[in-house]
């Protein structure tokens, strides 16, 4: 049913961006959605002092949690185990899929129903299961639509944000048996409800993500509006939760401020419909809930970000998506152009750890460094600083002490290095600089008209007829 769409090759990032920029319909969808989400968020934070206080608190909780991460992960594991939850550790997407597949094969599962989980997208869970003959069915309405269309989510909170209701009406009429074309959103949602209710009832395993994992109580918190997350974690006999290792907090009381920041920053709601706290499998006297609960803790490059004190802030993220909602680049090129599971500013800073800088460094350059992302980030990740750091890493000399990441130096070219080396010589010596600028102002007629990427959409750069120092000299004889 679902077509395989490869993700993350970076070579055609610019081409994909250009193609979206030339698609007025899609740009209108994204612009409208971003304006809507920005306004909704703004309305949730009428009191600037309260917002700033809560951001400081949220940031402090996340930084405290990361500073104590190994201890908290062990505490979480011990507490969950005592509660009857089975904890698994995976270094790579393949290991995570193998763990899930092992569970599925042991319980002879044929159907897996999925709640929204970006980590499951990160590890390409659906393809791994399908390759083993197990159906993995998305149940979040947006994810269901995207899966039905054989696509990938274009936003981490609103996966089908790139589609209009007309697109979805056509899709349902084509792909869902017995459904007539309708653009009525309520009717479309009821079609999804009807199809998915059967899927919940028939599934052997429910898969979910985790928004916060609480170490002191051994609790997995899930935030959602639709109820599909609760279905996935309650109806099937096995529940598998999967999360990055960074999602742990120490105390239950650390959750309320983060939950408030998440709901308000993500979709501009004061609260989501459901806040679901799971602390174990079904007890002997209980009548529903899964018999088995598993948690898969995934690294996939997060320990690389953790090792560097500046890049560690990347892991503070609570995945609200506010940075992409406010990003002038994301608003114009949309989520698919990035080619990574996580798009937008957070995608640009987290993806290099998952996929290597060699395939992701162009994302760090696809930013105006305007700072909107850092301004709205509920946990105060200094995203522009991290983007600049990643640019430096991408251009670092391999094997030098500036190259600390997987794929560092991947952006270096011989021409580029030569140009910068000459520039450094000239700018480092006053006499040479004066000489060079004298020649450039006199020889401006020789300036090339083709200047690579610069002249693709701009007029050529031509040195001024008079240097600044000459202008100053003329003024003060």
């Amino acid at each position, binding site marked *: 049913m679902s077509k395989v769409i490869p993700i993350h090759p970076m070579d055609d990032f610019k081409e994909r961006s250009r193609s979206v920029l030339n698609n007025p319909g899609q740009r209108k969808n994204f612009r409208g959605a971003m304006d809507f989400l920005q306004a909704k968020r703004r309305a949730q934070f009428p009191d600037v002092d309260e917002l700033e206080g809560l951001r400081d608190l949220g940031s402090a909780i996340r930084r405290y949690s990361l500073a104590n991460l190994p201890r908290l992960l062990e505490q979480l594991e011990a507490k969950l185990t005592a509660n009857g939850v089975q904890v698994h550790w995976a270094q790579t997407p393949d290991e995570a899929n193998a763990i899930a597949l092992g569970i599925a094969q042991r319980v002879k599962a044929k159907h897996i129903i999925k709640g929204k989980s970006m980590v499951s997208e990160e590890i390409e869970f659906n393809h791994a299961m399908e390759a083993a003959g197990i159906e993995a069915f998305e149940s979040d309405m947006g994810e269901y639509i995207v899966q039905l269309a054989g696509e990938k989510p274009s936003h981490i909170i609103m996966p089908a944000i790139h589609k209009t209701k007309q697109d979805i009406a056509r899709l349902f009429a084509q792909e869902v048996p017995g459904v007539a074309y309708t653009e009525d959103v309520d009717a479309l949602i009821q079609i999804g409800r009807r199809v998915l209710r059967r899927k919940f009832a028939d599934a052997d395993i429910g898969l979910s993500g985790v928004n916060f994992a609480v170490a002191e109580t051994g609790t997995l918190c899930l935030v959602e509006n639709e109820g599909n997350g609760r279905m996935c974690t309650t109806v099937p006999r096995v529940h598998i939760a999967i999360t990055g290792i960074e999602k742990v907090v120490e105390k239950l009381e650390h959750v309320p401020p983060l939950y408030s920041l998440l709901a308000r920053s993500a979709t501009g709601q004061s609260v989501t419909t*459901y806040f679901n706290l799971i602390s174990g499998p079904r007890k002997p006297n209980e009548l529903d809930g899964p018999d088995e609960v598993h948690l898969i803790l995934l690294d996939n490059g997060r320990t690389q970000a953790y090792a560097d004190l500046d890049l560690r802030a990347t892991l503070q993220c609570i995945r609200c998506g506010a940075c992409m909602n406010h990003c002038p680049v994301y608003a114009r090129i949309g989520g698919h152009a990035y080619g990574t599971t996580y798009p937008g500013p957070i995608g640009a800073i987290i993806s290099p750890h998952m996929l290597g800088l060699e395939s992701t460094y162009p994302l760090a350059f696809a930013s105006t460094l305007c700072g909107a992302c850092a301004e709205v980030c509920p946990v105060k990740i200094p995203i522009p600083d991290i983007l600049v750091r990643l640019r430096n890493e991408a251009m670092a000399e391999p094997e030098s002490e500036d190259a600390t990441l997987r794929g560092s130096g991947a952006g270096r070219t011989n021409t580029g290095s030569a140009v910068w080396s000459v520039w450094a010589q000239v700018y480092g010596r006053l006499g040479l600089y004066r000489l060079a600028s004298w020649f450039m102002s006199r020889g401006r007629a020789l300036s090339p008209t083709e200047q690579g990427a610069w002249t693709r959409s701009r007029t050529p750069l031509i040195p001024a007829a008079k240097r600044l120092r000459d202008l100053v000299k003329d003024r003060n004889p």
Partner: protein
Amino acid sequence: MSQSQRSASSARDAILGRLRSASAAQNAPALPDVGGWYDEHTTHESQSERIARLRAAMQAVKTEFHDTTEADWPAVLLRVAAAKGIRNLLIGNDTPHGAVLQALLPANLELVRYTEPIAQWRDTLFDHIDAAFTSARSAIADIGSVVLWPTPAEPRLMSLVPHIHFVLLDVTTIHPNLHSAMRAEGWSRGLPTNALLIGGPSKTADIQQTLAYGAHGPRELVVLLRHGAGGAA
């Protein structure tokens, strides 16, 4: 199996090892004073103001409220259920409020008790139950949510699968915010298998940011607000 166990424990050791070998943050914050922040930001208010905040927040997302008393909540429930054309109502197993309803022997409403493990009647629950009725443990005014701690007597799916969910809430159990609820009720000392905050009927805005109710969970949430004998109505 032993090989997979070995690789599992090596993944664990490798991840924890890498985290431990990373440098300690120079200005790692001390344990954040979350309680202090909430002490400063908790609204001091009367019970009726708190009830009003809860109602306003939940009604904004289409939750229905009915004021009731210790004496008349069953009659209100039956009247609302009849008005909605509900044929059957799922109630808990041996709950005091369920027993009150059963004693009334309602004529046009079949009461169904949740007595069997879900595997034995899943299709009936999904396909034939119109509505369910549970109690709430408490509620939270500022984020407009009721708190449910499902029990063997009132299992998890009661508040999820039937199309309409009726919930009985005592006005004396409303907390100002989530943090104060956790503190007052001692949540960190032990949580049930599943604890829930529910803010309204199930909803989604996944199609062109258009809000639609009744995504996967209940299409309607009806709160029966039970005022005490001498409580303000």
